[in-house]
């Protein structure tokens, strides 16, 4: 699903013609298009079969070639022949540091997006390259269906973040497609499986493609497809295995010319694919490609297993987490569905079988099943058919940044969409008249480690003492995954207007790192979060106590004052340290020490209230 900030009332889906809508699987390695004819989905084939390699060649003459033809030119023109751009879409240079050295072409750009220089010095973006692939699929569908395509559902990895989804949608638009919906790939696969087999039960969909990994757990019952939980890694796939094989067999490959890298990785892929049916194969990088890097070596399935193991274990970790999120054990699953070209490998199948304790299902072609499901969803949206209801989820949590940089999550990951959440926040400073709202996406506890989606300011908060101003923030996510954020000042009962400025892509945080870090730094995050929360609370209490000691001296007995001041000293020392529990204890200590005083103030405030003093004044005197 797509997460983006939308102005209210913005139109999303145009009226789509019932006849010609398609589902498109825009893959890292291969892409394909499908449509629904007579209630069942079919893949649309062209010359060379249904799969279109996601490869685009830019000729010096300005001619753009897509698919198998482009692939054929890869060896002669590696810099002008772009493959696997799905790994680059919606990413900035920083996000791509890890793979950059092993890509056979040149990357430029900034932290928000990259571009690739091809023949004739022309610069193209991953969005444009993807659009070329989509145009090819559109041409195919139009010639097969005999007319213009009115709408398309394009699939994306479930774990794609906002920037990646937005970029994919842009590619669709650039290709002249009306993008009716972006659909999560594993959900699409489950849709195709469920309809094909009339299945009922709980299934895990293990989707390992060329460049992405998704794991989703769905419940299928009476035409309802409910996603229970989803997870994954949007930069992990078969490509990584290819590169691993190539670098293991060709030492120093990172320093080789781009052309040699391209040839070595292509040979590694061929070897990997050969090991699907054979137990060993010969890896050969001919001296004609490079004298320095020439290699001939036998590779066995055992080698592949060893080299792929670290990658497979990463997928295993994500699977265990998703099971936990869906409150299920592996025994409660009725089956595991394999999706993605990389799951053809017996090495992957054996790993999945062991991980889930059951033989995975692969009776629908793992490379076609996603497009088939997308076609079904396109048909649902265009025709309003009644037999399929898809309940999808938010893949990554949505929240706002609080005082101190801590994230307060309003909508948690795996919440079913459409979803809404409302939370009230109080002003932090005296006479604060504005409220900064920073919307973020991700699992980390601090805002700087999450993806920034939007920032805006709520103005017109009436000047009040800290804690009295209350702002209600509402998050609404619709069935398309579009997020709308509104803020309202509550104390005065008036609604203030907000300006939403989309800012996704502006953070220079590495997306990948962000996702991985959320697992690895959970402890550090939590400690940081606790510390910030306790410090903020401590400062607030210290300020309030000092204020009250100064104004209500007549209610303050000497011994209470002494105890209170001692407790404040303890708290100040704790705040200077980094132990959140010490701060918590000191807060409770101060609370205890000043209790008699607080009681007196409360009694007086209540008395004042009965004497007709305004409630706000009473509350202020008590320091609420």
């Amino acid at each position, binding site marked *: 699903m797509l997460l983006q900030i939308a102005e209210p009332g913005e139109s999303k889906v145009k009226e789509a013609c019932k006849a010609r809508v398609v589902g498109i699987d825009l893959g890292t390695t291969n892409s394909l298009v499908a449509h629904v004819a007579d209630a069942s989905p079919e893949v649309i084939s062209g010359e060379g079969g249904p799969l279109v390699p996601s490869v685009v060649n830019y000729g010096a003459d300005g001619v753009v070639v897509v698919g198998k033809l482009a692939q054929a030119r890869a060896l002669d023109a590696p810099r002008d022949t772009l493959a696997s751009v799905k790994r680059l879409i919606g990413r900035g240079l920083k996000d791509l540091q890890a793979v950059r050295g092993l890509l056979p072409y040149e990357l430029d750009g900034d932290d928000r997006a990259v571009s690739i220089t091809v023949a004739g010095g022309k610069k193209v973006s991953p969005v444009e390259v993807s659009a070329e692939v989509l145009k090819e699929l559109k041409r195919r569908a139009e010639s097969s269906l005999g007319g213009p395509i009115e709408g398309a559902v394009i699939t994306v990895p479930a774990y794609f973040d906002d920037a990646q989804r937005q970029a994919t949608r842009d590619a669709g638009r650039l290709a002249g497609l009306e993008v009716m919906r972006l659909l999560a790939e594993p959900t699409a696969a489950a849709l195709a499986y469920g309809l094909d087999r009339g299945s009922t039960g709980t299934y895990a969909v293990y989707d390992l493609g060329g460049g992405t990994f998704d794991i989703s757990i769905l419940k299928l019952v009476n035409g309802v497809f409910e996603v229970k939980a989803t997870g994954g890694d949007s930069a992990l796939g078969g490509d990584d295995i290819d590169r691993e094989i190539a670098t293991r067999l060709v030492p120093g490959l990172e320093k080789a010319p781009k052309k040699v890298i391209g040839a070595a990785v292509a040979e590694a892929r061929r070897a990997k694919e050969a090991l699907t049916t054979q137990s060993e194969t010969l890896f050969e990088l001919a001296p004609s490609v490079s004298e320095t890097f020439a290699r001939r070596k036998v590779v066995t399935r055992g080698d592949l297993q060893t080299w792929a193991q670290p990658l497979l274990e990463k997928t295993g970790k994500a699977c265990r987490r998703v099971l936990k999120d869906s409150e299920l054990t592996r025994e409660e699953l009725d089956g595991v569905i394999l999706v993605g070209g990389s799951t053809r490998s017996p090495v992957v199948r054996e790993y999945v079988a062991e991980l889930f304790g059951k033989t995975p299902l692969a009776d629908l072609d793992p490379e076609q099943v996603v497009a088939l499901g997308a076609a079904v969803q396109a048909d649902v949206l265009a025709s309003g058919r*009644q037999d399929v209801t898809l309940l999808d989820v938010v893949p990554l949590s949505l929240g706002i940044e609080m005082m101190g940089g801590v994230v307060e999550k309003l909508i948690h990951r795996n919440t079913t969409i459409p979803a809404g959440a409302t939370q009230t926040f109080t002003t932090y400073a005296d006479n604060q008249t504005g409220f900064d709202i920073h919307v973020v996406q991700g699992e980390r506890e601090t805002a700087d480690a999450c993806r920034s989606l939007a920032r805006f300011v709520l103005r017109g908060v009436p000047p009040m003492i800290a804690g009295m101003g209350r702002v209600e923030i509402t998050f609404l996510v619709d069935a398309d995954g579009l997020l709308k954020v509104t803020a309202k000042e509550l104390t005065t009962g008036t609604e203030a207007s907000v300006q939403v400025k989309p800012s996704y892509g502006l953070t220079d945080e590495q997306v990948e790192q962000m996702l991985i870090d959320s697992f*690895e730094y959970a402890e550090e995050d939590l400690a940081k979060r606790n510390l910030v929360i306790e410090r903020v609370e401590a400062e607030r209490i210290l300020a309030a106590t000092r204020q009250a000691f100064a104004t209500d001296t007549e209610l303050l007995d000497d011994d209470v004052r002494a105890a209170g001041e001692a407790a404040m000293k303890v708290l100040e020392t704790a705040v200077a340290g980094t132990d959140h529990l010490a701060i918590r204890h000191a807060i409770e200590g101060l609370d205890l020490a000043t209790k008699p005083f607080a009681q007196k103030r409360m009694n007086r405030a209540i008395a004042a209230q009965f004497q007709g003093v305004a409630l706000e004044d009473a509350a202020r005197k008590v320091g609420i």
Partner: protein
Amino acid sequence: MASPSTSSDLFSLLGLQPSYEIDRAALEAAYHERSKEVHPDRFAQAPAAERVAALSKARALNDAYKTLRDARQRAEYLLARAGVTIGDNERLEPELLMEFLEQREELAAARQAGRSAEVESLQAAMLTRRKAILAALSGLFASGNLADAKKQLIVLRYLDRYLEECEAALED
């Protein structure tokens, strides 16, 4: 959690009688059936007003399901429905508070030292305790003792926060 004053009753949204005891399978089946009727995808081609109506109905339904599915949230909702609110800063009884503070320290120490087996045993102990509280709630709701139910729910909040920390420690 949704406030009962601003949205219609969560139980009736799902066609169920308000009760702490709930048949999860029946709840899920009711949710699926109603989702079929109101899901926005069904109204993708409908006039804007119908689309907006479907969207808000589906959202309310999703929220109701999420709240009622979880025992703690369901219990809190039942209290809120009866006018008993639990504030954000409800305090535990002093002796319970002390106990929790000690246990948190124990957890923090185990976590810091990377003793995951110890974290697991602390977690298991807390989960047992959680089960006991949920069982107690069942009796309290049955007898209509909302004041004591509230006390248990305050404990449950502390306990769940503790369990979250256990989870985070085990993710390391």
